[in-house]
């Protein structure tokens, strides 16, 4: 049985789908990294993703244009992000709990709109894999790296953009300062609110794209609660990656590889109960959290609202 795994086709398949499946995690967790680096925990990622997934799907379906769909998802995520920013920054609500509120809101609203506007599950023809001359035809390498759609490549590109912005720009410096010591940043003339508004609404937009990557690029359907916890895992991946984009990507890849392994276990009918296979990534996440927190310290001001003169 187990030897079925060690064929070239299966191994290549696992790695290729692992790379592809990391996409929604990457968008969501990179967006979340910015928010947390600036000191705000956005736990509403799941809700933002669901609404983004719905917006992308519905707009693509009605206009026939995937790019409009993507734009709609970005806008939806942005609006949700602005809501979270307002509640966390201006109203100073407890972030862990307000995020759950936004999650329930997104869960309910995406379901409501789905039932009212569509009613049944239909499919769209989503983003197609890009064909690279020569490269895509290479054996193994071609299938692993050069056979994905644009949103997959976009996700990995965003990791490096995030790394660059956080480590090599003044903006990144300001974001980190606001997350570590908002008082000091404020006294140096950095507007804590502005930076946080920027990072959280950006995070919301990225969550929207993460949702879109599911509904119009990977699965090409919309269903109620289709993210089923993916947004929460994305938040966990930020902790796992120690708030650094490249490490977050490592975590996302590890997670999606395990996931893809699990899918192949089911496809190949290997006698491991599939429930345990599905469970594996979550157990892994808990273990990973235990290991990471021993060596990385979260941003000092994480979840702490900032008020001038305190």
């Amino acid at each position, binding site marked *: 049985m187990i030897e079925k795994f060690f064929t070239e086709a299966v191994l290549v398949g696992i790695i290729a789908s692992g790379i592809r499946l990391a996409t929604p995690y990457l968008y969501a967790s990179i967006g979340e990294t910015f928010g947390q680096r600036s000191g705000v925990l956005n736990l509403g990622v799941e809700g933002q993703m669901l609404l983004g997934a719905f917006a992308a799907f519905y707009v693509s379906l009605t206009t026939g244009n995937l790019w409009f769909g993507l734009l709609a998802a970005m806008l939806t995520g942005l609006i949700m992000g602005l809501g979270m920013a307002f509640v966390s920054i201006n109203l100073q609500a407890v972030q862990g709990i307000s995020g759950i509120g936004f999650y329930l809101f997104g869960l309910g609203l995406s379901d409501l709109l789905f039932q009212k506007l569509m009613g049944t599950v239909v499919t769209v023809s989503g983003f197609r894999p890009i064909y690279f001359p020569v490269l895509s035809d290479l054996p193994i390498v071609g299938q692993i790296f050069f056979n994905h759609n644009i949103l997959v490549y976009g996700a990995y590109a965003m990791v490096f953009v995030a790394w660059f912005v956080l480590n090599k720009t003044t903006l990144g410096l300001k974001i980190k300062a606001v997350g570590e010591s908002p008082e000091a940043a404020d006294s140096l003339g950095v507007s804590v609110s502005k930076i946080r508004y920027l990072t959280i609404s950006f995070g919301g937009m990225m969550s929207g794209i993460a949702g879109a990557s599911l509904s119009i690029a990977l699965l090409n359907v919309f269903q109620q609660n289709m993210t089923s916890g993916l947004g929460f895992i994305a938040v*966990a991946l930020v902790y796992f990656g120690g708030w650094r984009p490249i490490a977050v990507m490592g975590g996302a890849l590890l997670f999606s590889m395990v996931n893809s392994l699990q899918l192949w276990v089911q496809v190949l009918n290997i006698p491991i109960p599939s429930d345990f296979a599905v469970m594996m990534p979550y157990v892994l996440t808990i273990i990973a959290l235990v290991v990471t*927190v021993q060596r990385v310290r979260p941003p000092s001001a994480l979840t702490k609202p900032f008020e001038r003169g305190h």
Partner: protein
Amino acid sequence: MEKWLRSESVSKLADALLPVFAALAALAVGALMLLVLGANPFEAFGALLDGAFGSANSLADTVVKATPLLLIGLGICISFRGNVINIGGEGQMIIGALLATALGLAFPDWPGIVMIPLAMLAGFVGGAFWGGIPGALKAYFNVNEILSTIMMNAIAVQLMNFLLSGPMIDPVQAAKASQIPQTARLSTSFDLPRLIPTRLHLGAGIAVLLAILVYILLWRTTIGYRIRAVGQNRFASRYAGIDVKRQIVLALLLSGAFAGLAGAIQVFGINHRMITDGSATGFTGNAGFNGIVAALFGQLNPIGTIPAAFFFGALLVGANKLQRVMQVPSALITTINGLVVVFVVSSEKWRKTREQKRLTDMMAEIDGDPPPNPEKAVKEVGS
């Protein structure tokens, strides 16, 4: 008149009513959404009220629906008071239900009077165990409990799916080709006593009784005092000699226990067997999250959580009628619940500011020298 408006009791009353205002605001947004959906909000809320309170049966259903919300809400009161955020109600409810069901299936011949309390205890223990793990991870390994409890939810669901389609499957189903993942029906002698002819069962009574006990636990015992002290200020508590880590574990353990009990009551009072559609919601009906909403609405006070759970139970039951009569998906209620959470936590700051102000006013009165600028005084006390 003005003096009356400014008086302390009125100001306190206004603060106590804040969640009600938050709920009204959420319902107003809900009304707007109904308008957009092309439904008359008045008719819709009418249908909702009728569905929730229209007959003895619907009223009983409301109470039945409110029971797990209250139980989980009680657990949330304990953990949130200890500044530990338990999002794992769904998983804890499942594990509690699994353990209680396994016990019931293993000893079908025991008399109900013995089995029912033991099964409730099994639910309590199962939930406590599932909550205790993230508690220990937080206390001793500093793992964020929000994330670990969410992961524990996903693990619990898979465990349920595995058990119900394998070791615990109904022998009848196991013999059939369909193999619906469900357990056999528990012995009828284990059914929680009911108020015939409705679905109202003993569980609601247990939950209300426990609400009073949790109130006593939190405000009249040292255990509760310690949990709340740690919730207020971890560092000060440590200096005061409280074992902070132990309180963190205890808070999550107890919080999980109540969710587990809710699971056991759900099985022994309503379903009489466990069945899974593959998701957590299929069994819990989202009670793990809605219980948080109820507890927040009850201002994290066990007694206040009683009417809060009743209110959200009514919303859930009424939503079914809303769907039947007006074709408005019941997902509207999830949306409104989300808004209630956001509005309640958003209004907290306002309440705190006013509490601060009352404190300053009081101190000024004692000094007999009112501060020239109350705003400034508030700031000073606050900082």
